[in-house]
């Protein structure tokens, strides 16, 4: 969220420099990611966590500043001009998905470009100006955080609004001039005949406010966050509006956003506005949260008293009552993230300042380890032993991605029925070549060799020790630990042995060294021409421990090394 310092100062007059205010916000939970200084202003780029939709506006951030710095918050004074004419006719058919729908009609507007002070501010905050009506809905969205929508009343059949789901309708043409496919349970805004907007996400193109618009209907509503999010994901469209609704809008504050926009439109585009039609079937009941002082101190490890707690919460706009040993907290309507005592404790901690907490060390109770486990799982110790052994044999550790390109099975000459061809696939890989999870570590090691040869390396030893993912006929695959190593031997490398053998014996020595370190005695290397399709028949063998085959060792198959140019 971008926020102009000048605009913020209209709500809270703080004496801090842009850099100082950026630090103050960051240290109380709204991280300022960038600060852009301009001639007469500065723009903060504020990262708003998903639980703080109330801060997705200039006023929201200003409220935070007022709480942090103990400065008065200057609320906007909205004065609606004289109301006249027939107010909008609105019907909510699905009150679970739309808990409130407030609207006004403004008749006789002159649609034109916005005054510079409006369009300039929109541009500063990343909005493209359109016309005075649309711009003011965006201006109020930025200022107060509540999304608004303006319809061309003349294009609303029957001059009325119905809020209901799509039902059998499966398409709508939206403002971005694209058809959106609809599902039956998506919430739409309808006129007497047809859908005119996807609720909380985007208006329809047909009822767009244009230069020929004379009368408008201004909407300020509260849509169900889950419903907006599902629809937005399903049609793959996220807007400033849907972003706020899916995080939770202020159901109590939407009336003043409507009034603010109506007033500004009347001021800049002219026109007469009607009274508000406010469909609000079930008013929000504020939550009462009991919080005990001892729990606050227990969780935070501090010793603060009631007066400190009260001061902190009042600065945040919370109402509090003393209730026996503890307090009862009533958060404002725009703080729907505050539901339980822990939420209140977090607010206290945040505003109190983490830097004021002592750094203590917990008292520790010793305990017996769970059955069959030591300080760490047995595999962890084995992993460390294998890594050490491989390194002492001259092999360097590599860490490759867990992904694999299934095409590589053909390169490696795997037969069609090779088990390793059964891969777990990722539904949304970044690249087609990374669509499967590894069932073998060999391809990536060969890629490492090819890459290093291209860099001029003549001799190298790599190993990788990690998991492969094997389908196990249940929800999660079997994750099995594997060791793979590769040795590229320069023909000119000095050797203890006579004759050409492509490093087979060095590799075998590394394996034997590993068995010694793991205290494995009963191992054997058995001549086998068929142990792996990618190995050289006659220069490869199967490796067994206690008579059980555990792997293979050998020179790369000549056909493979030729095709890979190794």
């Amino acid at each position, binding site marked *: 969220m971008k926020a102009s310092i000048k605009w913020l100062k209209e709500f809270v007059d703080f004496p801090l420099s842009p850099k100082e205010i950026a630090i103050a916000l960051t240290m109380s939970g709204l*991280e300022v990611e960038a600060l852009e200084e301009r001639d007469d202003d500065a723009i903060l780029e504020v990262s708003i966590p998903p639980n703080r939709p109330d801060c997705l506006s200039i006023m929201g951030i200003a409220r935070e500043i007022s709480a942090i710095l103990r400065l008065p918050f200057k609320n906007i004074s909205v004065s609606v001009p004289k109301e006249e004419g027939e107010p909008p006719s609105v019907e909510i058919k699905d009150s679970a998905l739309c808990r409130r729908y407030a609207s006004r009609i403004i008749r006789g507007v002159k649609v034109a470009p916005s005054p510079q002070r409006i369009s300039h501010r929109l541009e500063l905050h990343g909005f493209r100006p359109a016309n005075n009506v649309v711009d003011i809905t965006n201006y109020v969205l930025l200022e107060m955080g509540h999304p608004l929508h303006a319809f061309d009343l003349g294009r609303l059949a029957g001059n009325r609004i119905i809020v209901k789901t799509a039902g059998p309708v499966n398409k709508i043409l939206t403002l971005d001039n694209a058809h959106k496919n609809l599902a039956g349970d998506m919430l739409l805004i309808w006129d007497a005949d047809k859908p005119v907007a996807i609720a909380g996400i985007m208006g329809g193109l047909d009822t767009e406010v244009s230069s020929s618009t004379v009368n408008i209907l201004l909407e300020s509503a509260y849509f169900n966050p889950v419903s907006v*999010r599902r629809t937005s994901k399903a049609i793959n469209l996220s807007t400033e509006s849907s972003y706020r609704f899916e995080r939770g809008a202020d159901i109590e504050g939407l009336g003043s956003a409507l009034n603010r926009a109506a007033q500004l439109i009347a001021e800049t585009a002219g026109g007469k506005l009607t009274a508000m039609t406010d469909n609000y079937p079930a008013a929000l009941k504020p939550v009462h949260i009991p919080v005990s002082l001892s729990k606050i101190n227990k*969780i935070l490890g501090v010793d603060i008293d009631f007066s400190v707690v009260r001061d902190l919460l009042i600065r945040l706009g919370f109402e509090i009552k003393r209730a026996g040993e503890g307090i009862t907290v009533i958060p404002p309507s725009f703080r729907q993230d505050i539901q339980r005592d822990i939420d209140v404790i977090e607010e206290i901690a945040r505003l109190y300042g983490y830097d004021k907490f002592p750094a203590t060390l917990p008292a520790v109770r010793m305990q017996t380890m769970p059955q069959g486990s030591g300080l760490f799982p047995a595999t962890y110790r084995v992993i460390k032993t294998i890594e050490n052994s491989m*390194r002492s044999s*001259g092999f*360097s*550790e590599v860490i490759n991605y867990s992904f694999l390109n299934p095409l590589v099975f053909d390169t490696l000459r795997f037969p069609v029925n090779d088990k390793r061809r059964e891969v777990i696939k990722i539904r949304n890989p*970044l690249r087609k070549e990374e669509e499967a999870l590894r069932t073998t570590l060999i391809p990536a090691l060969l890629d490492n060799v090819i890459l290093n040869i291209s860099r001029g390396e003549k001799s190298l030893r790599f190993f990788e020790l990690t998991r492969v993912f094997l389908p196990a006929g249940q929800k999660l695959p079997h994750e099995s630990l594997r060791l793979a190593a590769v040795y590229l031997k320069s023909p000119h490398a000095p050797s203890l042995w006579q004759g050409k053998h492509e490093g087979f014996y060095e590799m075998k020595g590394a394996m034997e060294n590993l068995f010694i370190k793991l205290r494995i005695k009963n191992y054997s290397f058995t001549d086998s021409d068929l142990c792996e399709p990618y190995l050289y028949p006659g220069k490869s063998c199967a490796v067994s421990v206690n008579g059980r085959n555990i792997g293979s060792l050998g020179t790369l198959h000549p056909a493979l090394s030729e095709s890979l140019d190794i």
Partner: protein
Amino acid sequence: MTIEDVLSIKNLADEEIKKTGDLKSVQALRIKYLGKKGVLTAKINSLGAIPKEDRPEYGRVINETKDYVESLIKQQEEFFKASELENLLKANRIDVTVPGFFIPHGYQHPTSRVLDEIVDVFLSLGFRIEEGPEVESDYYNFEALNFPKDHPARDMQDTFYVTDDVVLRTHTSPVQVRVMEKNKPPLRVIAPGKVYRCDADVSHTPMFQQIEGFMVDEHISMSDLKGVLEIFAHAVFGASTPVRFRPSFFPFTEPSAEVDIGCVICGGTGCRVCKNSGWVEILGAGMINPRVFEMVGYDPELYTGFAFGMGVES
């Protein structure tokens, strides 16, 4: 044969031996004078032909001559042997400054090295290591960590999906839930491992390593979280490194914190690495959300705990 004959042999031998220039010619003279068919040997062998009364005198002169030649040759031989050895040592000098030969030792991957270093700090604080699957169910990766379905908090982590219900774990935090489900407090656990994010951004890799840590007992506080993480930061980044804690948001902790250390590149004055802030974020942490305790069947009024997670890059 006369005494004079023997004395002239002695003089000749004396002259010849002293003139020799190497071991070989000395040895030739040993054969010439003292060998089986040598000149002096022949004289000894012909003693029988000397009249009896003259024999002792002859014998004495011949033996004296033999001993004399013998010792002279020996002396000369030793001289040449010593000088030959000296020449041998001189000839066989090596250059001890030439680099030694050794079996090259392999390297640990830099990320593993950092990982080990961090794990060691927590092992020394009595944490134990646990592991969990990299292909994880939606329940453990999200739901049990208070990321409900259809919640915008899920947007915080770009997720690789295997099925609707199975993901590549986006963090090591599911290990918290798995361990708590199977064990009762007190718990001090660290869980290193690979995690996956499908960030299309070039500055992010789809796979990286993370370390999760958590501690649960009856009286663990936010101040304890600060104390333990300060020990960690000072052990890994240096005892004088400044550490700061600031509020943040994670669904599975509350209150949540971001932990920063003073930028080691600029020393806190501001540079590109720290985006001019003087601070670099190293980990996310917080008090374990009571909702997570409820999910694993712990009484949130009895137990409290903290958790932290950090990405490990080399």
